[in-house]
């Protein structure tokens, strides 16, 4: 019974992870990319919680908190950069960023 649940939880986490990755991949809007990234991070958080519950330990949840913190930090920096991006290009389209290449 346990294993089935853990597999399901993991499957969900994996699906979320892939959705997030696809989001980063297909979106051009940097804000949506950041959101997709958050989805990926939260997928990992889900996986941690599932694993923690599987082992009956608190470690998984502690890690989840750390993950959430990271997400916040990244988004904080990310939004700051988004502002600058918008200031410079009057758009939040990351496809504007193609100066560095070769």
């Amino acid at each position: 019974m346990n294993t089935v649940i853990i597999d399901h939880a993991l499957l969900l986490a994996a699906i979320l992870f892939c959705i997030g990755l696809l989001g980063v991949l297909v979106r051009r809007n940097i804000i949506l990319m950041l959101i997709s990234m958050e989805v990926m991070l939260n997928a990992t958080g889900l996986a941690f919680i599932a694993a923690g519950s599987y082992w009956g330990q608190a470690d998984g949840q502690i890690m989840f908190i750390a993950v959430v913190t990271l997400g916040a930090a990244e988004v904080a920096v990310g939004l700051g950069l988004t502002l600058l991006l918008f200031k410079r290009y009057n758009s939040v389209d990351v496809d504007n960023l193609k100066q560095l290449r070769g």
Partner: protein
Amino acid sequence: MTIEELIALVPLLVVASISVILMLVVSFVRHHRLISLITLAGFIAAGIMVFQSMGQPAIQITPLIILDDFSRFFIVMTCFASVPAVLLAYDYLRRSEDLKEEYYMLLSLAVLGAVVLAASNHFASFFIGVELLSVSLFAMVGYMVHGEHKRVSTLEASIKYMILSGVSSSFLLFGVALIYLNFGVLTFEGIQQKILNGTLNGYGMMGIAMLLIGVGFKLSWVPFHMWTPDVYEGAPVPVTAFLATISKVIVFALGLRFLHESGALGLFNVQAALAFIGVLSMLVGNGLALMQDNLKRLLAYSSIAHFGYLIIALIAASSASATNKALAMEAVGFYLVAYVVTTWVAFGALSALSQPEHGIEAENLKDYRGLFWQRPWLAAIFSVALLSLAGVPLTAGFIAKFYVFAAGASYTLWFLLGILIISSAIGLYYYLKVIMEMCKPAEDENDFQKAAIPFENKLILLVMTAFVLYLGISPQALIESLNSAIKVLM
């Protein structure tokens, strides 16, 4: 936590406190030199403290932090290698218009992340360290976005780095989660026992794979290397240098510790994946660098290749024979040290010719035309760096390559060594191309080569060049300290 543990932890605390102190100071007085001196003092103090404690028994401080000779070695290296980062940044910021002081906070946080990484043998500290380092770097890469002569590309580099790094962190974390699911422990050593017990299943394997992806991104192994050239090029020189040296080296050291302590290195599939990544890194890195005219990108590609070379030593570290294993680990250590000092020389020279006050960096090959005749010593020093990167004798890079050869040979990795030889030959082309450019007669007056080199920059160049040559001529001292550092892992 005992008092001994606390004392042992002091260097880490010192590094951690730098950013706090800086914040406090800045709120009272914005004094660039003072700020930089505080940062410098903090790094040096922490470095000296750890250096003093080398050779003492290992101390496990909470499950998260371990201070053994291996971590001490890399902490010392981080602290001392951060000194030029401060000096270079001081020089660079002094000449640019942006806010200066906050940079040092970011830098000290990044160094803290690196120090934590070096001392981590638990996934939680691993994760915290990596992210501390990365998130600070996002901001550092995009630091110079203000001012009249700002570098427009910093923003682009920063965003690219942030997004890609975020994705890679997700992989890394998902991997950790899967590993945790498989084994139920988060310490490296705990995993080893589980693997030996045969509890490894598909989740664990997938976890290790995703961990490799995360680490591979930080080390810009091919095929996770895409960010490297863009970020190297876009970031200001001091940040690029930091990114190229400390952030990579520490992640590699941690990767070695993880792969070794967890026993994952012994898994055939992991070795196969590493070998595959190694071959790709060597060939693609050098292939991309081949006709590159932008020096920062060139160094980025070359670093990709160098971390590909290191994979050979990494795989060789899985050897069952203790002597060969020690050899391979020394090889890794030596290579990292050599790479750091050499890269500092290279970026020091790059910075010496840059003009941040105009938002210009000497990154184009043509900026170096005739440098030998305008500034012979600078050109000579830069050549030493390039030759060291190319692995020519009497430089640290040669001994490092020699070590990799030895490690590879001891583990009979002939195929990988063959690729190493081929890609080294390709690599020679672009290193020599730069040297040749410096030898060509100067066409017209080159402003880049006229400006005086600041004292800090000279200091970095001289000291690091001395190191490169010293390690190339007399490597025994470093070998011995490495030998004692890796004993704890055996």
